[in-house]
């Protein structure tokens, strides 16, 4: 026994739908007026915009102040004592997705690590900021300065002297060797915010 809907003649359904559509749609005169009104409002809007002041900021004459954390050219910062922050740990070079950072680590006579040479290839850099995130000493940072176009691609290779700046970038107060590391004469437990080492022999249950 077929169900009721299935034997219901299809043309009757169509007829009903058509009558419903006719009842719902506005009369043709009304739709003409509505269409014309819609068109005219469009034309009025464009003509009004013709006399509005353009919102364009022409670039070389007008330079918008970019947010501090805009990611563009890379710099190497110094700590408050004026020393290079970079300890040549290779983390930035390891995390770089386009392999644009290369360096050679070296050790000073006082035991502090630094980069013998440090090179960023801005022809490859995609300004992702991963190096900045990976850096444990806040040495490598990205700046909002983005106008670095060069006529020759080789001039986009920045050496350490091109990258080094005389300030601390986003955090001037931070000094990595005050927080960690024993090579610079601060003993275990004497660093900022560090607990004394636990004597494991006294830690009896």
């Amino acid at each position, binding site marked *: 026994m077929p169900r009721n809907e299935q034997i219901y003649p299809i043309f009757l359904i169509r007829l009903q739908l058509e009558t419903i559509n006719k009842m719902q749609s506005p009369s043709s005169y009304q739709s003409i007026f509505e269409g014309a009104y819609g068109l005219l409002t469009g034309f009025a809007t*464009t003509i009004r915009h013709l006399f509005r002041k*353009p919102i364009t900021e022409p670039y070389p004459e007008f330079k918008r102040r970019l947010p501090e954390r805009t990611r563009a050219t890379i710099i190497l910062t110094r700590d408050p004592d004026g020393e290079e922050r970079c300890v040549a740990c290779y983390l930035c070079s390891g995390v770089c997705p386009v392999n644009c950072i290369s360096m050679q680590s070296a050790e000073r006579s006082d035991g502090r690590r630094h980069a013998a040479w440090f090179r960023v290839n801005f022809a490859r850099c995609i300004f992702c900021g991963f190096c900045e995130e990976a850096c444990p000493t806040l040495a490598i940072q990205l700046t909002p300065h983005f106008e670095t176009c060069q006529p020759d691609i080789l001039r986009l290779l920045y050496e350490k002297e091109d990258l080094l700046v005389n300030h601390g970038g986003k955090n001037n107060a931070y000094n990595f060797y005050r927080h960690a590391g024993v090579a610079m004469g601060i003993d275990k437990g004497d660093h900022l915010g560090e607990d004394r080492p636990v004597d494991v022999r006294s830690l009896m249950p």
Partner: protein
Amino acid sequence: MLTQWIMGFILLIVKLGVCLLALLLGAAYLVLAERKLLARMQIRIGPNRAGPFGLLQPIADLIKMMTKEDLIPREADRVIFRYAPAVAAATAMLIFAVVPFGDHLVLWGNRIPLVITDLNVGLLAVLGLSSLGVYGVALGGWASHSKYSLLGAIRSVAQMISYELSLGLSLVPIVMMAGSFSLVDIVAAQTKYPFIFVQPISFIIFFISAMAEIKRIPFDMPEAENELIAGYHTEYSGLRFGLFFLGEYVTLVTLGALTAVFFLGGWHGPFLPGVIWLIIKIAAIAFCMIWVRGTLPRFRSDQLMDLGWKFLTPLALINIVITGAVLLILTVT
């Protein structure tokens, strides 16, 4: 006799040169005007780098077009591919030959009519040439051997042929009222009042069909960027692309001139010389077309055909019948 002939020939060459130069310059600066106006309608500034207010932009564009590589696809039909843009540009420019741009001048006792040639079938020549323009588009798209070009060309041909009909039919009442196919006579018939006041419906049909004829937004289905890249001139580059582009804008100027001639009284107007009036009228029509481009979105293919065949063509036919009836009543009484 011979000197007169030579004088006439030199005069013709001078007129041709002046007209051609004016037409090309007009088309070039129309591109700039369109870009500027569109930009302002979208509250942008538009081109402003080449020269003061970007006034040298057309020249910069020309240099760019001329120095770019002229690519021909490997599978293309080379001969047709090379000459199709010329057809598109030449037909557009030829139409202007029958447009009168002023009353006659008197120079050394000779009467010089300000029209290149006063054909007695000028209107038919106009329609014929604008139909020939379809060949440039169709052959260019066909010869490119590219799917986009071919689809664009097919669409253009369908659209241009459809709107050719309403374009021609909308001009029949004008011919009936002026009693002549000559554009000079049609302008002369409008000394008292321009035909737009008695034939507003014809004017609207002509304006819409003209926009469809030159494939401008909202009728730019053949060049729909988002589906066909650039339609029939997808594969063109360099100066050949420039010729298509030029043809399009020259047609815009010419159609503006024709609208002025058929409906706005041609070069007739108070106070100013005829040429200035014609330029003002062309500029007004061009502004309207740019305004439409800044406002309306693109039609769908079937809507386009519906508008042409089911609305404009019947309306134009009805308009012809009514005009004929009114003219008959006026002549009988």
